[in-house]
């Protein structure tokens, strides 16, 4: 693979960005064809962290396979688990208690904030500003502490089980979340001062990485990437699951189609997540946190598809069951994979420095792409 990379016959430069490169945040490998600083072609080479989770899940029971999905998009572990739990619940026709649904939504939104925090810091670091990374991690740390207290882990929590939750909330949960909300609302203004308003940052972002609405649909882009192009794609609004249908929030749409629009979508989305949490945090109903389920889960013969909105976009879980205790075939439609496929058309004609800005605003998580 590496031998063939050099200079092409017409004098273009080919360089490897990745698999170990500071801007790819993982083991993404892009082969760029450059004419000077101008990008002519971007070609992704995947598979450096492919664990074949889909194949693994074929030998795990319906209770067991959920934990593996935390390792796909590790920044939205709760949402991945949510999608799987929903799919199994759909197949088994399990009614999830209201309390569990509300807690799931709060956890999802906290995870979304944490994910966007990390994205914000990492993206700013790609652009060349190092300080935001540390500032965003300060708030993310608070969420991680809340997660640690209730779910027992910071990143791969495995808190959702088919039928509800693995454990009840920690007694301090509500108090801590409220503290976090107060603190976070102050901090998010600092983000605007430090990065959003900065003239250098705006010049780096505006008009860079244009993804038209038509392209966004055709490339199957979802999540903030699609919403930055004005494409309504929020699963929480379009096909509400859990208690998303009952809470008030806005689907953030920006029509700029460029990196700055995608940036603004995520920044504004964090505020919407806070809004959702604020509505629910005092309204957690009493009751069971888990529905009564059989010891051994067996999905009836058939096909089940659920989708949830992770921090990166639409995650689809497609289970084909033959009526056994393990799925016959399982397919994860990961948002990162489709978003990555749009990178080539976005990057052509722009400068090498822009590629970094584009990758930053696509918010690529490599295990999510490779699965």
């Amino acid at each position, binding site marked *: 693979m590496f031998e063939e990379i050099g200079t092409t016959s017409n004098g273009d*430069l080919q*360089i490897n960005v990745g698999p170990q*490169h*500071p*801007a790819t945040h993982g083991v993404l490998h892009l082969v760029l064809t450059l004419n000077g*600083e101008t990008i002519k072609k971007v070609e992704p080479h995947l598979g450096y962290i492919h664990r074949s989770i889909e194949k693994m899940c074929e030998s795990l029971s319906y209770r067991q396979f959920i934990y593996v999905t935390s390792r796909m998009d590790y920044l939205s572990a709760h949402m991945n688990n949510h999608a799987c739990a929903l799919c199994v619940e759909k197949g088994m026709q399990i009614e999830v208690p209201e309390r569990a649904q509300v807690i799931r939504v709060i956890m999802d939104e906290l995870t979304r904030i944490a994910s966007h925090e990390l994205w914000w810091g990492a993206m*700013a*670091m*790609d*652009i*060349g*500003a*190092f*300080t935001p*990374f*540390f*500032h965003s991690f*300060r708030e993310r740390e608070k969420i991680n502490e809340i997660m640690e207290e209730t779910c027992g882990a910071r990143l791969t929590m495995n808190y959702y089980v088919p039928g509800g939750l693995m454990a009840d909330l920690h007694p301090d949960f509500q108090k801590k979340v409220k503290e976090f909300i107060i603190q976070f609302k102050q901090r998010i203004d600092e983000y605007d001062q*430090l*990065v959003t308003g*900065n003239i*250098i*940052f705006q*010049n*780096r972002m505006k008009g860079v990485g244009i993804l038209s609405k038509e392209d966004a649909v055709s490339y199957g882009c979802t999540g903030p990437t699609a919403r930055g192009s004005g494409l309504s794609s929020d699963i929480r609004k379009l096909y509400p699951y859990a208690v998303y249908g009952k809470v008030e929030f806005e689907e953030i749409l920006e029509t700029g189609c460029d990196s700055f629009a995608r940036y603004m979508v995520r920044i504004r989305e964090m505020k919407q997540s806070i809004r959702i949490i604020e509505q629910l945090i005092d309204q957690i109903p009493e009751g069971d946190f888990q529905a009564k389920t059989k010891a051994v889960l067996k999905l009836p013969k058939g096909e089940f598809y659920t989708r949830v909105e992770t921090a990166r976009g639409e995650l689809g879980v497609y289970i084909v069951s033959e009526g056994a205790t393990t799925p016959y075939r399982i397919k994860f439609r990961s948002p990162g994979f489709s978003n990555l496929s749009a990178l080539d058309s976005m990057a052509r004609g722009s*400068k*090498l*420095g*822009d*590629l*970094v800005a584009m990758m930053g605003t696509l918010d690529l998580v490599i295990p999510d792409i490779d699965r």
Partner: protein
Amino acid sequence: MWSLTDITGRLDQWLNQTFSSTWVLVIEMLIAGVAVIGLFAALGLVLVLMERRVAAWIQIRLGPNRVGPFGLLQSLADTLKLLVKEGMTPSGADKFLFNFAPYIAMMVAMLLMAPIAFAKNFQLWDLNIGVLYISAISSIMVISILMAGWASNNKYSLMGAMRSGAQIVSYELSAGLSVLTIVVFSGSLNVTDIINSQADGWWIFKGHLPAWISFVIFIIAVTAETNRAPFDLAEAESELTAGFHTEYSGMKFALFFLAEYINVFIVCALGAILFLGGWMPFHIGHWEAFNHVMDYVPSSIWFFGKTFFLIFLIMWFRWTFPRLRIDQLLNLEWKYLLPISMFNILLATAIAILGWHF
């Protein structure tokens, strides 16, 4: 008052009494050489530590605090690490140029020390075109970067070097023009003359608007010229991994690293000399008592204080701003800074001819 001038004067006297004049010259050159190298090492250590502390505090971290009291020996430990590291030369590299490039960077930084006035009457070489000399020599820096980038036989290095070439050559213009503003005001290229012309007030105070504009442009231009963020495109970690020094390791890398910091020091010293009066104490009009107190502070403290203030400013930039893109970088120079500084030098000339400055 304790002064560096006394020490150098007495040393010179004693040497002249003991040896013949040729030997005195040789010995004094040796002493100066050792002093420069010593200053070099000391500055490198101090500036690296300072940078890490500034970065840490801005990033709500503690910074180095493990080696020595308050982490003061951290940069010594780093140096030791770099010394014992293997200095690799890639197999496809042009070995001579590859190994030679860091030394050019180092030599340039050393040569630049010559006309800097560290304190009152304390200067290695008071040549009559001191400012021009600094402008001329600092441009040679680009050769070492181009050499390093080319010889590494690495595409990232090459791109970093080419970026750096375009950048340094462009920003040399507006840095030169803003230096020229002060030259126009003071009417001399000699460093001592420029400092002496600020005895009644620094140029930043008495030069009106043109001095202000040229100060801002100077700071921007020298930040770019020394390849520091937000203009660190030659290194651009997230784009080019490490730019022109991707393939360098161990002490060869350390030389580049050191040269960067020394260059920052030199340009900040030049800024302090041109705009902030060098070693001249801070005086306010007719406040005799206040001025007298200010005179008591040794001139070397004034010089280093001003220089380190400017260095801190440049570090503050680095840890606050994102990086520019290459075309924006060149746009900034050719569409904004250069026209403004050209206009500015006209304004400055008019003011100087009409004698409007104090």
